[in-house]
């Protein structure tokens, strides 16, 4: 089936939603006709190049721009101090004190806090001149000791990044649900783990960040053509800092070459470019280069879990968990400490854990700031939960499949309320697991594993990762971090219009980066308006001038299928209502008699009485004399709709509430082979079962599953961002940072189960981020390969050298795990708990 297929007639086959359709976007993209940010420009623009610190932590003693300014072709240089002087305030802080005292300006002021921190920005007539000139900006630094350990950072003796804050702790809070002390005292077993560490990596979109920013001297309007994925967030943060009101911003995005959350992080650059443009009196174009991206665009959250205690009954029922979490936010709080609450969307993971206490500390260190990264903050916690479930099974000699099935939220439990008041909407985890095991041919691999035995130098491991992709945030959860924040709920806008000749246009508030929004929006609108998706033109990207936006607009946090398409449905239905009203007037019929088909409004059962959309458009736009004023005022053929999900403000003291509307689930099964001699891991088979409710376009959904799987496998085996003690990034380019290639990522067998969400307009759930399931599945497979009594997989990243160490663990070396078994507990009566 292709998008060029002929219109389908007949009521029964008339829906386009739910069909696998190749995308409308592809035509331009396969021909090199896309419009990515670096493809564009403005007349008279200069090229910007940031001067970045080679030190992780240093005082800026002096900056001499003279040699750079003396170069031919250099328009301007802007330093941190100058930028600050042009600003009205530092960037808005999400955190309350002390985090709010960790101020950030468009460029570093007084101090640099990570390798790659921007101290100045140059504007010149060519990219090459700008780059050369940036090297001639002479910065004198006085190096300071670097803080690179996310746990040690919290200790009072550790050097401070922000003297004015008096601590490196940006936020601290205790999440305490149920009664974990009681559970630990009364469980048959308590499994203790010393330390689990989720590593730092980035989904590193192939297109780096970029923007063309113009501070219009005549109007004061700041035009921002960029690939920023959450434009109005940038506007809200940058506006008050540089003194520009919302109605003087014009954010525009076009094609975006991947984002994965990372493209929420570069608002400081947009602010700096706006000030640079203002200073130089010409547009500033900046295209980040890869090394710059790896150093400074933003990394995913690194999190260390300490003192983990897990109460377990002897039948395998896991009662809860207790842990201390240290999240390393890097040098500036770009979107943080939102991650310190966002994880709590999935407190019990996929399981019926009732008693959970997490003591959560977020720190700043001399590393690149973290920003949302596909699976943002939930992935780290879900990995903790999955490691716990897996380790419990191994340590107690239980079957990893059975332990999961026993503890999963069961199909009959939905809607299921978690200990912190989140509502899991629907799902069937046991069936998802069965399907994944079948797709991965686990029975055959188990047999192979037994055949292989020991002594062959090779080991086979089979692992499961079960996760949730919580979608459509309730922004009220930000108040759990800071009760003063003026945010709650969520929403998205869309615009549907019947154009002059009866054509249909749809504008979105979203900023798609490959998720196929133009196609799925067209499918949904086509169903409502009685046309084909081909008949619906969906504008590419975001344009503030379209007015199809709200404060939450953008593409992030797995929500388009709900909030984006909810808005499209609403707008299309509004437009349909107008079309029907006009047609009823034109055809002298009742509104109930009008049906829309093939771009024509007709009276049901009377073929003679019909009017094509062009006729209705003509009535309104170019031939309206004599029409009733009441009709015209109701039917302007321009319909804007804002979808708002039903949310309440969470309880910020108890830290409870419904934090997300939908919960798509993923169950992955991974089969690996470990080479004992080299530590190399090969993925032999991989299966992913995704349940995201009703799928609007299964082809697109499956593509998202493939992508999330590929990134997760690469992160688990190949991709890691590591700093040495002086704060130097060890993987600052694609040479050192081994991005997964087609040789590394295996084929993926996909299965799907559709458990429609009862809470969304279309039964769909947001999806795409994927919960990091491959990280969990690969770790579990590795644990399986290591066998009972072997090393415990305690790192999320397991490249060959670490795997070698795990396989060749010194006998008797500490395993970091302990099981305390208590006789006379609750007599194995898990049901009473």
């Amino acid at each position, binding site marked *: 089936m*292709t998008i060029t297929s002929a219109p389908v007639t007949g009521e029964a086959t008339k829906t386009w939603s739910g069909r696998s359709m190749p995308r409308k976007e592809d035509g331009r993209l396969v*021909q090199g006709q896309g419009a990515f940010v670096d493809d564009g420009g403005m007349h008279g623009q200069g090229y910007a190049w940031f001067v970045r610190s080679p030190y992780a932590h240093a005082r800026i003693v002096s900056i001499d721009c003279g040699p750079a300014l003396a170069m031919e072709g250099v328009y301007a240089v802007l330093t941190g101090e100058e930028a600050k002087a042009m600003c009205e305030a530092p960037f808005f802080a999400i955190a309350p004190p002390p985090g709010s005292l960790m101020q950030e300006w468009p460029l570093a002021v007084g101090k640099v806090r990570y390798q790659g921190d921007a101290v100045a920005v140059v504007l010149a007539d060519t*990219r090459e001149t700008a780059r050369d000139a940036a090297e001639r900006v002479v910065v004198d630094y006085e190096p300071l000791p670097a803080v690179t350990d996310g746990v040690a950072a919290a200790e009072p003796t550790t050097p401070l990044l922000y003297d004015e804050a008096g601590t490196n702790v940006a936020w601290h809070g205790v999440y305490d649900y149920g009664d974990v002390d009681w559970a630990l005292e009364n469980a048959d077993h308590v499994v203790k783990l010393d330390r689990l560490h989720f590593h730092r990596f980035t989904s590193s979109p*192939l*297109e780096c960040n970029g923007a063309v920013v113009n501070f219009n001297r005549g109007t004061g309007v700041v035009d921002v053509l960029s690939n920023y994925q959450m434009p109005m967030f940038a506007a809200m943060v940058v506006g008050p800092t540089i003194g520009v009101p919302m109605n003087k911003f014009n954010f525009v995005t076009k094609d975006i070459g*991947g984002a994965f959350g990372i493209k929420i992080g570069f608002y400081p650059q947009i602010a700096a470019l706006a000030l640079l443009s203002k200073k130089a009196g010409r547009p500033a174009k900046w295209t980040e280069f890869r090394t710059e991206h790896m150093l400074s665009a933003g990394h995913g959250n690194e999190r260390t879990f300490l003192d983990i205690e897990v109460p377990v009954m002897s039948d395998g029922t896991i009662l809860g968990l207790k842990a201390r979490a240290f999240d390393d936010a890097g040098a500036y709080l770009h979107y943080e400490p939102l991650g310190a609450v966002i994880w709590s969307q999935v407190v019990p993971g996929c399981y019926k854990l009732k008693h959970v206490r997490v003591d959560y500390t977020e720190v700043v260190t001399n590393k690149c700031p973290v920003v949302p990264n596909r699976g943002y903050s939930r992935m780290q916690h879900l990995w903790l939960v999955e490691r716990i479930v897996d380790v419990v099974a191994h340590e107690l000699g239980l079957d990893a499949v059975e332990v999961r099935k026993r503890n999963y939220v069961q199909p009959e439990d939905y809607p299921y309320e978690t200990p912190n008041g989140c509502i899991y909407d629907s799902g069937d985890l046991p069936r998802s697991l069965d399907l994944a095991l079948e797709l991965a041919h686990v029975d055959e691999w188990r047999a192979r594993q037994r055949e292989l035995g020991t002594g062959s130098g090779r080991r086979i491991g089979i692992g499961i990762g079960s996760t949730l992709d919580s979608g459509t945030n309730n922004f009220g959860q930000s108040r759990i971090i800071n009760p003063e924040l003026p945010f709650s709920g969520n929403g998205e806008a869309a615009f549907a219009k019947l154009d002059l000749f009866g054509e249909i246009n749809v504008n979105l508030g979203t900023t798609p980066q*490959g998720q196929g929004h133009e196609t799925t929006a067209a499918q949904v609108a086509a169903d409502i308006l009685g046309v084909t998706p081909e008949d619906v033109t969906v504008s590419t990207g975001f344009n503030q001038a379209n007015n199809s936006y709200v404060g939450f607009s953008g593409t992030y946090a797995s929500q388009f299928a709900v909030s984006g398409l909810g808005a499209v449905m609403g707008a299309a239905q509004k437009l349909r209502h107008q079309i029907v009203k006009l047609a009823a007037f034109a055809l002298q019929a009742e509104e109930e008699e009008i049906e829309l088909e093939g771009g024509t409004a007709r009276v049901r059962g009377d073929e003679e009485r019909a009017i094509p959309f062009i006729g209705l458009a003509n009535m309104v736009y170019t031939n309206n004399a004599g029409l009733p004023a009441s009709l015209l005022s109701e039917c302007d053929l321009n319909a804007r709709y804002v979808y708002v999900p039903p949310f309440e403000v969470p309880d910020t003291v108890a830290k409870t509430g419904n934090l997300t509307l939908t919960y798509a689930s993923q169950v992955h099964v991974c089969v690996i082979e470990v080479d004992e001699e080299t530590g190399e891991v090969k993925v032999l088979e991989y299966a992913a079962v995704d349940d995201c409710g009703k799928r609007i376009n299964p082809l697109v959904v499956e593509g998202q599953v493939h992508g999330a*799987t*590929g990134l997760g496998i690469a992160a688990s085996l190949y991709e890691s961002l590591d700093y040495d003690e002086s704060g130097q990034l060890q993987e600052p380019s694609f040479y050192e940072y081994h991005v997964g290639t087609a040789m590394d990522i295996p084929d993926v067998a996909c299965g799907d189960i559709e458990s429609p969400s009862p809470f969304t307009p279309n039964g769909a759930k947001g999806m795409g981020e994927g919960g990091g399931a491959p990280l969990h599945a690969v770790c579990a497979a590795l644990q399986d390969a290591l066998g009972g009594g072997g090393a415990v997989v305690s790192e999320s990243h397991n490249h060959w050298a670490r795997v070698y160490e795990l396989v060749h663990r010194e006998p008797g070396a500490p395993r970091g795990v302990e099981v305390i078994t208590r006789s006379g507990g609750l007599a194995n009566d898990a049901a009473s708990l």
Partner: protein
Amino acid sequence: MGERATSHAVTVEVNGEKVSRIVAARQLLVHFLRDTLGLTGTHIGCDTGNCGACSVIVNGKLVKSCMILAAQTDGATIETVEGLAQDGTLSPLQESFHEHHALQCGYCTPGMLMSATYLLRHNPEPTDEEIRRGIRGNICRCTGYVNIVKAIRAVSRRQATGGHAVTAAAGEEV
């Protein structure tokens, strides 16, 4: 110190069209294509020659255009993504990428298509392993390569069963 040329005259044939320009000596081929000729379909994803977004075919060889100077291509025949479709008809690979959802953000796609085009010219019936080897120099962050492999495989089979004449040496390493 001898006189150093900071610019060179370059004449190339790009997608069948002959163009002559004076280029800066330091200009990379990818910047020549994008900035000077306005062929923005060829993309840049890294600065170390690892990502393959800038892949083009120069004198019949697959080249990462960020790893070669424009001045080095004087007299060359260059093929870019803009030249794949002929007379408004997508190439079989372009069509197959569309049908199999082998692209999401589309940023790697031009380079991926050039590598796949080159692969099939030299190995019209590759195994999956050979397909993966053929695109190992092209990074995609969206698709996990699953549908890209599928799309290339579909075209190769179609070519094999459709009896297309392929004259280049088979099995050459990419």
